[in-house]
């Protein structure tokens, strides 16, 4: 489903080339639940954003659902991303000025879903995540766990094939974190491919595969 071949990324610092990722070869199959682990600065988030097609400054080959991402222009990449990927962030990144309902609606509006269809999908997701009662609240009126719940709901609202999660429980206490991981597990069981970046072995245990990075190299896959 996702295949990275000899992917590298570097930055120039004070005339010196520093590699953030080196010779990354990785394949993720459909239905996988992959946890990317490693110390800080290992390149985990960078790898996630390369797969998520947010990052364009890399070399190598990336195939996503049979399409060669490295040959696509930015517009084609955005199209591919919007159709297939949902993101969950450590800091939730809900839009402060929008209600829960509106936050869930945003990805659909960017994908040009008609209004009535958006309403139906959002209602369905609210129901599925049991947050109907919170649909008119603003993010600041929710707890961290609730905010991340909305964050995950927002990630899946457009029915992506893949969810990329960057330390999704990093800002949550353990009980809230467990709830979110259970949710991921359930989504994975329903067929969604998940790649998460995490420091937590407990969280990684919810997945079926761990990829370890160190200094930009895959040390264990």
């Amino acid at each position, binding site marked *: 489903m996702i295949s990275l071949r000899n992917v590298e990324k570097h930055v120039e610092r004070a005339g010196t080339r520093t590699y953030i990722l080196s010779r990354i070869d990785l394949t993720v199959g459909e239905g996988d639940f992959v946890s990317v682990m490693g110390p800080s600065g290992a390149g985990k988030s960078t790898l996630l954003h390369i797969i998520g097609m947010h990052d364009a400054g890399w070399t190598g080959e990336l195939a996503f659902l049979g399409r060669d991402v490295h040959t696509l222009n930015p517009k084609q990449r955005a199209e591919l991303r919007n159709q297939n990927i949902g993101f969950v962030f450590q800091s939730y990144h809900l839009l402060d000025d929008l209600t829960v309902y509106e936050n869930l609606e945003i990805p659909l509006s960017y994908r040009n879903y008609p209004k009535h269809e958006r309403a139906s999908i959002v209602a369905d997701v609210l129901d599925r995540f049991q947050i109907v009662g919170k649909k008119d609240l603003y993010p600041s009126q929710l707890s961290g766990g609730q905010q991340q719940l909305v964050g995950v709901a927002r990630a899946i609202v*457009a029915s992506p094939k893949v969810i990329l999660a960057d330390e999704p429980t990093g800002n949550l206490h353990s009980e809230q974190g467990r709830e979110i991981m259970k949710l991921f597990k359930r989504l994975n069981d329903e067929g969604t491919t998940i790649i998460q970046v995490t420091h937590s072995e407990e969280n990684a245990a919810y997945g079926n595969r761990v990829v370890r990075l160190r200094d930009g190299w895959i040390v264990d896959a």
Partner: protein
Amino acid sequence: MRILLDDIRIGLRLLAKSPLSTSAAVLTLALAIGANTAIFSVVNAAILRPLPYADSERLVEIRAALPSIGARVLPMSPPEFADVRDRSHVFEDVAAYGTSSVNLTGEGAPERVVTTYASASLIPMLGVRPVVGRSFTTDEDREGYDRVAVLGYGLWQRRFAGIPGIVGHSIHVDGIAYTIVGVMPADFRFPNRDTELWVPIAFSTHQYSDDERGSHWLSVLARLGPNVTEQQASAELRSIANDVRVEHPTFYHDDSGWTMTATGLKTVVVGDARQALLVLLAAVGLILLIGCANVANLTLARATERSREIALRTALGASRWRIIRQMLTEGVLLSIVGGAIGVLFAVWIDTLLIAIKPDRIPRYEELDLDWHVLAFTFGVSLLAGALFTLVPALVASRSNVNDALKDGSRGTSEGPGHNRFRAALVVSEIALAVIVLIGAGLLIRSLDRLLHVSPGFDPQNVATMRVAPTEASYPDPGRQRAFYTALLEKIRSAPGVESAAAVNYLPLGGSTSRRSFAIDGVGDAVVNVEFRMVSPGYFETMEIPIREGRSLASTDREGAPLVVVVNESMVRTFFPGADPIGRRIKLGGMETPYPWMQIVGVAGDVRHRGLDEEAPPEMYVSYLQPLLPDFEIGPMFVAVRSVGGPGHVAGAMTDAVHGLDPELPVYDVKTMEDRIGSSVAGRWFDMLSLASLAAVALLLAVVGLYSVLAYAVSRRVHEIGIRMALGASPGDILKSVLERGALLVAAGLAIGIASAAALSRYLTSLLFQVEPTDAWTFLGVSGLLAAVALAACYLPARSATNVDPLVALRHD
């Protein structure tokens, strides 16, 4: 005091810490305060400052009015002046004066000098003493004893090199010797800035006779008695006018409404410039508000950046008032620095104005930054400082210390209140700019309308000059006629000349002559229509169409039946629905010795007084037909239509005059197109002034809009990053920023248009054939502002699309 000094010290340090935003604020304030200072200095010199005469508030001009022909201000005749002088009790003194130009010969080259003929009491009434010698006495203000003159300072310096023993020297005024008795101070300008010579008016017995009652050419100045008001004086003048009307029914129709009033001299001097200057003052006031709104935005942004610092200060014990005071001190410091630079800017504007000598500004020579102006600037600076700091200071001082310190660790945050305040500021700026722009738009449209008004003749390729054969060299009208005839023949024979003609008062020439007349079969005379003497070929040279009958021909000369051409306005007014051709009219009343003249033609209307004034009733007679044996011709304009442009014949015209009389000065040499240009110069000045201010207003408002949006985008980088991560395309982001800008612009436009619709009626007196709520102007201004404003929105919108979601999200 020590705390204030501390505040100032810290304020200066903080301002120096952000040189870019400090410079932007100072420049904005300098522009806004400078514009206010400059315009206020003009208003101060022209309107507020007393006239430079003793007890000037007691000086009034006595003006006649003739409502029946729509003349609100009419000069007076010598007998009318005598009526006022002899019958009134409310005036301490009354003086008559009239201005014309004379040929000055004798020492040095002949030159034309603007001269005021005045009663002996005029200069003492103004309370100005000559710097050398004396002014003339009552004894000298009598026919036969009046050959004395007072020089202007400039004339003394120019023509006589400022020699100290000038008193007793002779000058030749129109060929007649006058003895110089004094020199006026350099800053003495009465009745206008061009006058350089004062001589006694010395009315003759004939001039005081009722025969001259219809000869309106005088201005009358009076000094109110102690504790007498203008209203009381006007009441007495109306009463005198009623008596005079009853006593002289031949000259004043019962229904003519002829009356007299007293008007403060300052009101007369300021004239219609008052309205224009007040409009400009209002415009710069609006610009100041726009500038303050811009700086308030900057201040709010700085307050946001400083929220952590302010929270720390509060946590360390600073009271809310202390925080507000610190910020107010910084604001006032900024505005005082801006004000100081603004004063320099105003000095530059004033210097420029004095250099370009705008006739539109009364008393522009007196422009300076006196203590009134500086106090105004200081006051405006303090007000501006308080205005743009107060709300940001109140908002910043109210922030929650806990939140600010917590947020401070991640950067800064601001609530929806800040955004609403910013939005309100920028909406106000746009609304204010719309008001100024619509004002300028209305003036531009008025001027455009005016420039498309036909003057009633074709000004292209017409050169004009004025010559004045003196009474001394040309003592009888016959010689004057012979001179003009010879001159025109000489000019017509010059290469490039298509035709040439003469007229005593040229259209847009700045002066005119009115005469009363009677219609045969109608009876009593009707007072005051425009009266012109022209040479044959005048209508052809000026290309004034003859609508009916014929033009004046060279056969209409002495001995031939007396003929007259009238204009369409005269026909409409006095011969409505009748054929005027063949009817007879005469100057003066039925009883005057003037002969009857037969109307032989009707000429098209000519806008003599200005493109914005309808043509008055007018009659033309040939200078070849003397109406009385001693009927004076006086100075005449010569108009020459050329083939290759007016520049080619100007030399030939002057040569022709000097070929006939080397002593005769040629003056007022201009093309007709220049005269039209001069006649609309005041409107050009009004329009350019307001348009310049509108440009400044637009610039400041657009900068304000841009900075608010740019700031909003900079604050939204994180949010935009999330949106992009969630699938927003660059187009979506562009649209969202543009939409926000468009919303602000639309709100500003709506408020601005509504306000302008309510305020623009104050411009009515400055408009010409344009309604104050002219839809095209409102639409045009809205379109222009919307286009410029949206272009300003595009830049931050565009930069928003360049947000890298990866970088934005890395803020985690």
